[in-house]
């Protein structure tokens, strides 16, 4: 069965430091992968997505993610974190056969220290 694992429930980084949020997936074929961000009291906003092609994907707000098939990973990165990046981040896999639904991970809550 398809699944998404985000191993880190909470991550704390200092403002200006680099960030990497981990995402591992289980899927039989080439997955469609997404990263969403959820600020407190808000819905989910799409940061970036991977469908095919270049395995390094650029997104909004300075985020990027790299698809590594050999590791079944799609980690999110940002070279320098801003205080406004504090939020919850969700990885999702799409294209579940027969439907178009997403399977979401449990999320990683990011805290940014001034």
């Amino acid at each position: 069965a398809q699944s998404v694992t985000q191993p880190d429930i909470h991550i704390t980084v200092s403002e200006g430091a680099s960030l990497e949020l981990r995402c591992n997936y289980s899927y039989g074929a080439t997955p469609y992968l997404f990263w969403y961000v959820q600020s407190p009291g808000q819905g989910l906003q799409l940061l970036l997505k991977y469908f095919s092609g270049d395995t390094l994907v650029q997104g909004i707000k300075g985020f990027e993610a790299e698809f590594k098939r050999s590791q079944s990973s799609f980690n999110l990165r940002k070279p320098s974190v801003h205080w406004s990046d504090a939020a919850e981040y969700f990885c999702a896999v799409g294209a579940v056969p027969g439907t178009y639904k997403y399977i979401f991970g449990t999320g990683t809550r990011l805290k940014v220290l001034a």
Partner: protein
Amino acid sequence: EAGVAQSPRYKIIEKRQSVAFWCNPISGHATLYWYQQILGQGPKLLIQFQNNGVVDDSQLPKDRFSAERLKGVDSTLKIQPAKLEDSAVYLCASSFPRGRGTDTQYFGPGTRLTVL
């Protein structure tokens, strides 16, 4: 372009009461989704509509939850009667269907339900 609209934003009810949530998708988006997001978890799909037809409702607790999308535009999700474990954020999303799992879903702000 207006985003996905949801109302109300917050709702507090007692167990065994009924409640309804409303969603208006982005104009032109034929696919509409309702998700349940329990605190500390990722969103879980409850039901997916394509126009006014149900595509997937395999995880909808049909003994108490119902949803409709009359005329293929806005949608309502109802819970009757509510249980304590229904406390969650209910998210609505929509997408423009291209017939593949690559469709990007756009989310509304959600309705936070508290059942006492």
